[in-house]
């Protein structure tokens, strides 16, 4: 099956190149761009800025797309970024039940499990259980909000700033922000865990 699809994609590329629809060099550049320039580190910088600058946090929550653009991140797949903040009583988690909508400019390409039927269907029905399976046990009293991403709204979770980080600067804080914490299936690293890593 995989080999058949591989041959089909090869045939497709040959046709598209002959028809001058795509240039193979541009295809390489596009892939390279998404693999190296667009990744969760961008989102981590956004979160670290929000943690250290209350004005930026306000702007991020009011208009995610514009606030993300302030740091130079954006593009066609980053329209309508909506930032949702975690608090001590509310935990947010993001899913795309229809396909794989995801804020690419700040998180990079979605991981495979984000696109799996199991994640897409179960996160809506049993968020607490699925989060626990993924290693995130939340206290009963914490309310879980599940956000269904779409082209109209691509959600970015703003995790809570970890304790013990009072003296830390933006760059140092950004190292604590994991991709999973911005999807809502994990928490940011603690300063100790980051030092060990």
């Amino acid at each position, binding site marked *: 099956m995989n080999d058949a699809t591989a041959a089909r994609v090869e*045939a*497709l590329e040959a046709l598209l190149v002959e028809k001058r629809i795509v240039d193979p060099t541009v295809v390489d550049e*596009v892939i390279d761009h998404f693999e190296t320039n667009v990744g*969760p580190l961008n989102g981590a910088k956004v979160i670290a800025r929000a943690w250290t600058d209350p004005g930026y946090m306000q702007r991020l929550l009011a208009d995610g797309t514009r606030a993300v653009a302030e740091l130079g991140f954006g593009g066609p797949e980053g329209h309508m970024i909506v930032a949702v903040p975690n608090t001590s009583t509310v935990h947010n988690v993001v899913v795309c039940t229809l396909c794989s909508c995801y804020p690419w400019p700040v998180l990079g390409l979605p991981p495979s499990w984000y696109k799996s039927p199991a994640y897409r269907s179960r996160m809506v029905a049993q968020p607490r259980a699925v989060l626990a399976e993924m290693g995130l046990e939340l206290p009963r009293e914490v309310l879980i909000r599940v956000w269904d991403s779409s082209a109209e709204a691509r959600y970015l979770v703003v995790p809570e700033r970890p304790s013990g980080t009072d003296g830390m600067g933006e760059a140092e804080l950004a190292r604590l922000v994991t991709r999973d914490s911005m999807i809502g299936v994990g928490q940011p690293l603690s300063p100790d865990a980051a030092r060990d890593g």
Partner: protein
Amino acid sequence: MLRVMADPLNIDANLEGPASPPRDNGEIVFGAPWERRVFGLTMAACRSGKCDWEAFRQRLISRIADDEMRPYWQSWAAAFEDVLEQVGVLAPGELDGRHHELSKRAAGIDHD
């Protein structure tokens, strides 16, 4: 360095084959080179204006809904073909023909 906080293996425990999850913090996105390639082709075609991103997204949703268990990148490839046929870049059957030719030529030859 960023490290894995969640264990994505648990959630996909019942899935097999190409839909199995990555082992690292999202860095393994593509399971096979063709997946990477079809992704790049789609983005390049959209950026050159030959493929409308929203039309593609709608086809992807339909293709995923048609067969939830089909591996994600196969649904993606099928949706991309749909859009290219819709806008007339590919004539019906054109890709089948080229695919067949290529498969015949490649038969018995090891390559990657």
